[in-house]
């Protein structure tokens, strides 16, 4: 918290209101209010891209699909099960298995000629599959494209659960990976936009909640 304030060059007293979101939101001592990531991502996206009706947010721990109504309100959402398959954590594990880094995944994906098949139901299972693929001589780029397809397919099923409506927008850190976005488009067969600075959309939403609360107070 202190670090964040220092980076922003502000003091705690300067903040008119503080809203927390994400894991750990319950434990923050400074906050006036806290909202779930779901509402915050919705808020952030509705502000940035008012035509968005479906949000796919893939973060480190969670993958979720959120449906918005015309007013930008959450109508329905679906989230991954306890297993980490389909989340940022899954990509991290896969990157490690393939001796590359998260940030390099999209470059590899670019070089893929075909998409290898990687199971999307379980991280552990997918890991052993990837190792088999590597030992069978499948090009690394193709496997990485397969891993991306697997993430997209997992998130795609969340979207199907809430019902697909355009425009579709991706947020969360994983949206920075063009490989996943491309796979997502292939999966859903519709264009997928990426939110500007996707990794901070949740935080932006939280800030918007704080701002609105402040405006109400001042009235």
């Amino acid at each position: 918290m202190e670090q964040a304030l220092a980076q922003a060059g502000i003091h705690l007293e300067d903040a008119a209101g503080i809203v927390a979101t994400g894991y750990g939101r319950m434990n923050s001592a400074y906050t006036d209010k806290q909202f779930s990531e779901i509402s915050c991502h919705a808020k952030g996206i509705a502000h940035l891209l008012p035509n968005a009706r479906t949000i796919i947010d893939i973060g480190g721990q969670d993958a979720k699909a959120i449906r918005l109504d015309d007013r930008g309100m959450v109508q329905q959402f679906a989230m991954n099960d306890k297993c980490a398959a389909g989340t940022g954590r899954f990509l991290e594990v896969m990157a490690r298995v393939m001796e590359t880094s998260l940030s390099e995944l999209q470059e590899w994906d670019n070089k893929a000629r075909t998409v290898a098949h990687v199971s999307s139901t379980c991280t552990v299972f997918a890991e052993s599959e990837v190792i088999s693929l590597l030992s069978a001589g499948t090009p690394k780029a193709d496997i990485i494209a397969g891993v991306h397809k697997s993430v997209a397919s997992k998130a795609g099923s969340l979207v199907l659960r809430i019902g697909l409506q355009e425009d579709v927008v991706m947020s969360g850190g994983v949206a920075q990976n063009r490989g996943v976005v491309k796979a997502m488009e292939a999966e859903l067969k519709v264009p997928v936009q990426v939110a500007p600075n996707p990794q901070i959309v949740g935080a932006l939403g939280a800030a918007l909640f704080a701002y609105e609360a402040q405006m109400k107070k001042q009235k």
Partner: protein
Amino acid sequence: MSKMQSILEKLAINPVQAVEDYKKKTGKGAVGCIAPYTPEEIIHAAGMLPIGLWGGQVELNKVRAVLPAFACSIMQSIKELELSGSYDILTAVLCPSSCDTLKAIGQKWTRKDVPMIQFVHPHNRKLPAARTFLAKEYQHVRERLENVIGEPIPDEAIVQSIQVYNEHRAVMREFARAAGAHPDLIDPKTRHLVFKSAFFMRKEEHTALVRELTALLDEAPVKPWDGPKIILSGIMAEPDSILDVMKELHIAVVADDLAQESRQNRVDVPEDGTVMERLAEQWQNMYGCSLAYEHEKTRVPMLVDMVKKNQADAVVVAMMKFCDPEEFDYPMIKQTMEKENIPLLQVEIDQQMQSVEQFRTRMQSFVEMLRHE
């Protein structure tokens, strides 16, 4: 081409083609029969083609929105195929309610133009009231089917179909015996395909081909087999790639207790009673199957007997992942096999399995273990 090969070629599996050809030839349609057990005789008697629906290797997309990941892969793929319209060529579909997943599959059916005919097998099987119940349940199936096709299915036709099916069961039991004696001629995958092809053909045709095949096997000299001989038990042993691995490892399947294979032919329809009662009584007489309630669990001693009778080296349980009935039987099988000193391997079955490497590793280590014994 050898005679045997030409028969095997005729047993090739192509469901869509089979349905289209049948429609063209007879002007009658096909009815889907969701695994494991349906009164196919009624469909057959209507002059239609009963088609076994046992899933398949398909990519799971649409189903993932409507069924959690912990449903077995057969039902996952059946639902996927349904949602993507693959079953729209069928006239109707029959669905038993043998487990919690099947109950849901029947209820979740979405194809309005392909009527779903769900029914229930009773669990309290030995009671006379169970026979009466199931006879009426089958009668209800028959009436709904008659409604769909718009014509009656007469008793005499069903009696004839029962005859055809009993004959088919007997021929399949003979084939299983002959194939077990000739692993050099019938490898695990071929054996599986001979069984599976019965789900896509009128049974009288299948009977004729398999009878011919069995005769050829019986003529052939019995050669010694130096690889491991196993009994396969479970719902099914698919995808085919795992059977290829078995072949590579020089494994012979000398007998099976698979729902998709020998369990289909275990018990004949008895002779006495009204047509529907006869069909119902077959279910009362069924044994050794995880889906047919029995607190005696005859499946367990049956597997031991099968090992002895076929001089098998081991039992391999092909465990359909997420299949409650099968998973609940396993501890008892394990207990008894340990007591009887019969080597046992459990392998997980997932129809969508793409890579067989994990399977190969387990199977190969098992084979190596058997050699040391």
